[in-house]
């Protein structure tokens, strides 16, 4: 039986099941295999916030979404094309986002009376006609698996545990994916447990075979390879990328790396990764709290390490006072904040971009420091290295903002050639004769770094105001004014050392869409779509929030309207209005979810209407679009 094939540009598939169903595992495999196959990929794991909720419940559903295609894959996909649902709860939770005519691959075993009840279905959706607008393939996976295993001597309990690979096999057939990568991963992962390997490989193959034979699967979909730059690639999450970025930055700066941290969702993975890098000489202290996390890092920085601390909102709040100390002592320190939805404990597993104002201003006194933000999972690597570069070059703490979305989402990352990355030069003092701890370099205003062990440069620093140059404690009025200004100027001056803002599209005109952080993906996709549809719109993305790129003011004033989409109530909007007195239109969403590109597309389309433009002009820029995402 030969089947039809169809070429597609992009697809979004979502594996959903109970927490125990192994959806994260098959999701990761599917995404790696898609990478191997030469596609652009963007993935997002969607864990329940319970550790292990009761089986079959709505809040126990675990899912993994993969968006892949030939080009322009910047988000994890607005709508799902193919939904794998291992039980009724996972269907219920995920169907809202399924595209009409989308494919549902169901495991009927998960739709028994108990499961239906737990999911809150009064009738079985497989039978009650409610799924008519989708293409449903209902499979009794247990039964199918048993068939395939008849000739094998494997315990049936083991077989049952490989249903997820069966489902994966089906999807591999659907997108004509090779099985090799997953097979070799299984062999590596379960090395020594022959029956486990056998069961898994067999199930994977059985899934493929099942789909090939089954009449409900009418077509295979082909997604052409992307035009990617030649090189080595891997899938990487933002959190992994931060960990690697720190190791690479330390290497390029020829410094030991020290991490002082305290676990907190969704930042803990960075700690996990670094705690495994012992053979790279990484030292870490899992401290008793966030304050000890950052202050131990400050101690290590005083001793000459590239020091870092990683956290999320509540932890950043606790580090507030110590960040001020790092500002005053002018020690290099990388502070990574993987933002989550607040305030307070908030929605701890959900992303938001609402720590920007805190990163900028969340300290008593005038305590300026550089703030950067990563645009995507793989960009976390670049921006971490950049944060370390700035910290070491300017002797300053730097806050790098990522969030729970890009922290946990993954995308292919072109692995850099380490040797080709530029060196980072720490600002060590060298001459005891002229040494003073607060003497500054004229160009950067950075002070000198003399660390214990350097003979003849013994000195004392701390949180009290210092005399310019000598670093001696000073309560002098004019000195305080001077030092306050110097600290500000040092940070402001970094604007000369970072790339200017690039505008994609016309460099002036009606409307500029300006994104920052993880909204990059959705914004970019929306812009490309709108341009494809013939709209005139320009786009820029900010990675540097403090200082802003030098040309930002110019860029802004060259547009009639500036639109900023943010996962907060308008924090960047606020900063920009304050600094450039340029009215900004905010698109704001605080729902614990990233933007869909379609949401932005529609908002912007609305804005682009002549009527809206006129209304805006008539109101002197005071029309905001309502937050109704």
């Amino acid at each position, binding site marked *: 039986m030969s089947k039809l094939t169809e070429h597609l540009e992009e697809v979004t598939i979502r594996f959903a099941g109970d927490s125990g169903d192994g959806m994260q595992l098959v999701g990761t495999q599917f995404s790696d295999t898609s990478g*191997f196959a030469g596609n652009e990929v963007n993935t997002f794991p969607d864990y329940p916030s319970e550790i292990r909720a009761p089986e079959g419940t709505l809040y126990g559903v675990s899912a993994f979404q993969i968006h892949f295609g030939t080009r322009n894959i910047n988000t994890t996909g607005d709508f799902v094309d193919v939904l794998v649902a291992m039980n009724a709860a996972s269907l219920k939770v995920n169907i809202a986002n399924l595209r009409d005519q989308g494919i549902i691959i169901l495991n009927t075993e998960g739709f028994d009376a108990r499961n239906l009840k737990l999911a809150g279905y009064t009738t079985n959706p497989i039978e009650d006609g409610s799924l008519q607008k989708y293409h449903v393939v209902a499979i009794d996976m247990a039964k199918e698996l048993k068939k395939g295993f008849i000739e094998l001597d494997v315990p049936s309990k083991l077989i049952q545990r490989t249903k997820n690979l069966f489902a994966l096999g089906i999807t591999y057939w659907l997108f004509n994916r090779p099985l090799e990568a997953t097979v070799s*991963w299984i062999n590596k992962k379960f090395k020594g447990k022959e029956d486990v390997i056998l069961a898994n490989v067999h199930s994977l193959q059985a899934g493929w075979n099942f789909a090939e034979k089954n009449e409900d699967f009418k077509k295979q979909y082909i997604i052409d390879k992307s035009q990617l730059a*030649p*090189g*080595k*690639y*891997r899938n990487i999450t933002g959190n992994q990328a931060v960990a*690697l970025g720190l*190791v*690479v930055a*330390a*290497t390029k700066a*020829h*410094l*030991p790396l*020290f991490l*002082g941290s305290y676990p907190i969702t969704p930042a803990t993975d960075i700690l996990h990764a670094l705690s495994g*890098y*012992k*053979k*790279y*000489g990484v*030292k870490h*202290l899992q*401290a*008793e709290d966030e*304050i*000890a996390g950052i*202050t*131990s*890092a*400050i*101690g*290590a920085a*005083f*001793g*000459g*390490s590239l*020091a870092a601390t990683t956290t999320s909102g509540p932890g950043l709040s606790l580090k507030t006072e*110590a960040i*001020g*100390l790092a500002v005053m002592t002018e020690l290099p320190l990388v502070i990574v904040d993987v933002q989550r939805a607040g305030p307070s404990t908030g929605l701890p597993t959900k992303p938001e971009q609402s720590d920007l104002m805190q990163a900028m201003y969340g300290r008593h006194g005038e305590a300026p420091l550089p703030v950067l933000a990563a645009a995507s999972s793989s960009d976390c690597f670049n921006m971490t290295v950049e944060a370390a570069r700035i910290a070491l070059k300017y002797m300053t703490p730097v806050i790098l903002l990522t969030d729970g979305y890009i922290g946990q989402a993954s995308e292919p990352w072109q*692995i*850099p050639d*380490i040797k080709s990355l530029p060196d980072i030069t*720490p600002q*060590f003092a060298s001459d005891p004769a002229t040494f003073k701890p607060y003497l500054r370099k004229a160009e950067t205003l950075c002070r000198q770094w003399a*660390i*214990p*062990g*350097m*003979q003849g*440069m*013994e*000195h*004392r*620093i*701390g*949180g*009290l105001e210092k005399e310019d140059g000598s670093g001696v404690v000073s309560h002098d009025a004019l000195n305080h004014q001077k030092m306050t200004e110097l600290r500000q100027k040092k940070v402001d001056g970094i604007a000369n050392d970072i790339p200017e803002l690039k505008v994609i599209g016309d460099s002036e005109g009606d409307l500029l869409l300006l994104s920052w952080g993880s909204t990059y993906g959705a914004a970019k996709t929306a812009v490309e779509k709108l341009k494809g549809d013939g709209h005139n719109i320009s786009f820029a993305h900010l990675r540097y929030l403090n200082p802003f790129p030098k040309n930002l003011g110019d860029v802004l004033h060259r547009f009639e309207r500036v639109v900023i989409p943010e996962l907060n109530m308008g924090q960047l909007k606020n900063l920009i209005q304050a600094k450039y007195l340029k009215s900004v239109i905010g698109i704001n969403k605080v729902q614990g979810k990233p933007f869909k590109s379609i949401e932005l597309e529609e908002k912007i389309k609305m804005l682009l209407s002549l009527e809206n433009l006129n209304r805006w002009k008539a109101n002197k820029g005071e029309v905001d679009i309502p937050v109704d995402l």
Partner: protein
Amino acid sequence: MKTLIDDILQKPHAGEMQYTSKDFKPDVDVRWCAGCGAISVLSPAQRLMPDLGIPKEKIVFISGIGCSGRFPYYMDTYGFHGIHGRALPIASGLKIARPDLSVWIVTGDGDNMSIGGNHFIHACRRNVDMNVLMFNNEVYSLTKGQYSPTSHRGQITKSSPLGALDDPFNPVALALGASASFVARGHDKDRAQLQQLLQKAHQHKGFSFVEIYTNCRIFNDGAFDLYTNAETREEHTVWLEHGMPLLFGKKKDKGIKLDGFKPTIINLNENGNSINDVLVHNEQDSTLAFILANMTYSEELPRPMGTLQNLERSSYEERVVKQIEDEVNLKGEGNLESLLLGESHWTI
């Protein structure tokens, strides 16, 4: 994994180290009040430094906030005047990153036991090799006189005009409960004793805690007179020395005897009591240390001074270094390229 730090570390000290205590006195005014107990701790510390045989660029003094916090300014070594309560984690980070340094912490009863209490108990537990000198004056002095976690119940201060309602911590007991390996107590009126305790703390590998009674002239004057004044201290304190009987009194004719777990006083001139009845100190016995620690607030018993506990245990930063070495020995030094490649990658 050779780094620039290694270069700095491996550079030998230029010239000979012929230090005297003067080499550790920076050219600044000491700004504690005249007669402040802190001043009396400064000189034994400065006198000890030359004896350590460590180049002064390898010595670091770290403090928090409080009158005690000024200490680093008066030591011509590297120094860090941290924020309130955080001297210990700053020091821990430094020592873990830089095991080659000699790290000293100077803190107060408020800095260390109030806002810094958590770091203190974790430092006790973790056993990073560093030495804590806690200036206990039983009051918050820098903020001009509020009761502290070591103030006694009923103490009248600016924030307890009708008397403090809290019972105090017994700092040495708390340290023992948190399993500190070295726990000692000294005071500001006997500099020789103090210097000896600091030396011992330095020699002890791992976390060393020395509580130091320091008189605050201004806000709690005379709080320790009974235990520190030459006229009364012999009768009201007992010096703890490993292997030595617990004798006290001007004529050393009184001793501590254990009645079950209960320390009692015996007079060697009475009832046929003999030195053999007197408890002999053992720094390595945690239970004994706890019993002695609990004599602290007793009305009848002399207050224990000296070394309560001195246990050998590997230090935390040693373990960190060893874990790295073991891993490198087992798997070879990390290859950054392969780390970046990760578990699976592909080529385009």
